[in-house]
């Protein structure tokens, strides 16, 4: 062991400040690394650079107004955030959502999952030096964003899922667009795999890197692909089904090696499973039918009714001036986001504004395991490990 004489004494290790402006931290994450040569001895994440107080802001909005804030937490999964928030409010209200709206929701969040995994795969590969994968992934992501734009008028912050259903009926021509995507995508996933799975550099950078045992992963509250790569088949869509997921036939891919390569394989397999779900939802969505629950006073009435019925006009006025008031109580709902278990806790005190809204963000909780993944590894592997847990800093800091 070589030691260096410094002004303060003999130093064996050095402290390196990584971030907050570092391209591979996918946002603004700062990590203090204590290094012994190239080996990480200790890692201390420092967060909060993107904290915007979304939970506090929600307390000053009516239940419907807060939906737009949820889009902006995990900006790779806005529809999933909408969904978890709406499910929690619906649970508080005891509201039943029509089946057609549930299937549309499932199709949209599964498209979102593929979209998010594409961004993950592209950026993770670019971090590890595989430039071209990024371009391929963003090519397909564009197609998904076009579908979102078609449905909601927005590419990213769609706010498409609303309390009681979805915002709009599927647009004309949606079947062709989704069908085209379903036809194209399977071969594209094969294409990514042909670029990476048996690539020796890729294997060298990811195999055996960032190991965590299943016991440690559960103890550290990890969820999502990272937990499933450790061999625990915990997926909210199967364990606590929501939005009619119990009617869909799909598998939960798991692996046991629990390294960066295993997590890559899990996410690729999940893209294929999502395609299966989208295909089934595509068949289940009927051309006609309600997209919103029947709940006067909570769901805004249709335009035609407002012009012909006095009650509808009154409800419209009441909903947009004061909102609606769920019964006092608390609800906690979890869904499977691309990153893991996304939860929403809402407490109502019987007023039109929530008493407390809290999001259990999977990025935040999975990031907690980062020191466990990288301590004892090489500094180059830190990049691979940050990428592999797939954090979105907007969601970490909220």
């Amino acid at each position, binding site marked *: 062991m070589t030691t260096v004489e410094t002004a303060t004494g003999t130093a064996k290790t050095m402290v390196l400040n990584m971030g907050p402006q570092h391209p591979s931290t996918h946002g603004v994450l700062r990590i203090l690394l204590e290094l012994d040569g190239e080996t990480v001895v200790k890692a201390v994440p420092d967060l*909060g650079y993107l904290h915007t107080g979304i939970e506090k*802001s929600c307390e000053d909005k009516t239940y419907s107004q807060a939906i737009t804030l949820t889009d902006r937490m995990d900006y790779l999964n806005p529809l999933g955030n909408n969904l978890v928030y709406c499910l929690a409010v619906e649970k508080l209200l005891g509201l039943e959502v029509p089946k057609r709206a549930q299937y549309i929701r499932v199709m949209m969040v599964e498209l979102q999952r593929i979209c998010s995994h594409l961004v993950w795969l592209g950026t993770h590969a670019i971090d590890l030096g595989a430039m071209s994968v990024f371009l391929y992934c963003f090519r397909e992501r564009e197609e998904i964003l076009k579908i979102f734009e078609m449905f909601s008028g927005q590419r990213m912050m769609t706010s498409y899922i609303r309390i009681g259903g979805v915002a709009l009926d599927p647009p004309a021509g949606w079947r062709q667009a989704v069908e085209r995507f379903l036809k194209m995508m399977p071969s594209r996933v094969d294409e990514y795999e042909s670029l990476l799975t048996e690539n020796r550099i890729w294997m060298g950078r990811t195999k055996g890197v960032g190991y965590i045992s299943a016991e440690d992963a559960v103890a*550290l509250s990890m969820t999502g692909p990272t937990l499933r790569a450790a061999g625990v088949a915990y997926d909210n869509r199967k364990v606590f089904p929501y939005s009619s997921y119990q009617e869909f036939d799909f598998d939960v891919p798991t692996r046991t090696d629990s390294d960066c390569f295993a997590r890559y394989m899990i996410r690729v397999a999940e893209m294929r499973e999502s395609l299966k779900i989208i295909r089934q939802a595509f068949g289940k969505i009927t051309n006609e039918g309600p997209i919103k629950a029947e709940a006067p006073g909570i769901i805004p009435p249709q335009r035609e009714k407002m012009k012909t019925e006095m009650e509808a006009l009154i409800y419209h006025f009441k909903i947009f001036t004061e909102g609606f008031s769920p019964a006092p109580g608390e609800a906690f709902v979890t869904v499977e986001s691309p990153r893991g278990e996304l939860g929403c806790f809402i407490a109502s005190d019987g007023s039109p504004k929530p008493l407390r809204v809290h999001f259990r963000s999977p990025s935040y909780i999975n990031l907690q395991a980062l020191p466990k993944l990288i301590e004892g590894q090489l500094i180059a592997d830190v990049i691979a490990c940050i990428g592999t847990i797939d954090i979105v800093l907007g969601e970490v800091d909220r």
Partner: protein
Amino acid sequence: MTETSSQNANVVAELLRSWNAKAVAEVIEFRGETTIVVPRELLRAAAEHCRQHAGLQYNLLTDATCLDRYPHEPRFELNYHLVSIPRREKVRLKVKLSGNDPVVDSLVAVWPGANWLEREIFDLFGIRFSGHPDLRRILLPDDWEGYPLRRDYPVEGYRDVPNTGELFRKSSTP
């Protein structure tokens, strides 16, 4: 759905009661969710029991969060959301804390994942967790004053802005 959840509520409540008669202060059933209110002194031991007992096996602490009912007392309610992966069940443990003494035992020794969850609650609500290995602010800067998610902390304009509601009440009294 509701039936199975109330069965689970009975199972959890009975197992906790048979372990310690004082462990269950209240059982709340709302919209198919089970909440068990635990006295503050017994939280750590009850959590340990929930994790270890063969009939409970709550091995995943999925979330911990706080709720401020200001101006009512006890104002703080800590909610721990537990999941048993083998049993496929959820339960919520709740502890009520007064505003003068918001201190509770840390659960980091039971679930290491509680570390950042408790730091977040400390940061935003000012609840102190005794026995926590690293109780520092996490989202806000270290020199931040106040705890923003408390209900008496305004959403905006917390510095040098007169309380207009207060002024109005004063001027309207004869």
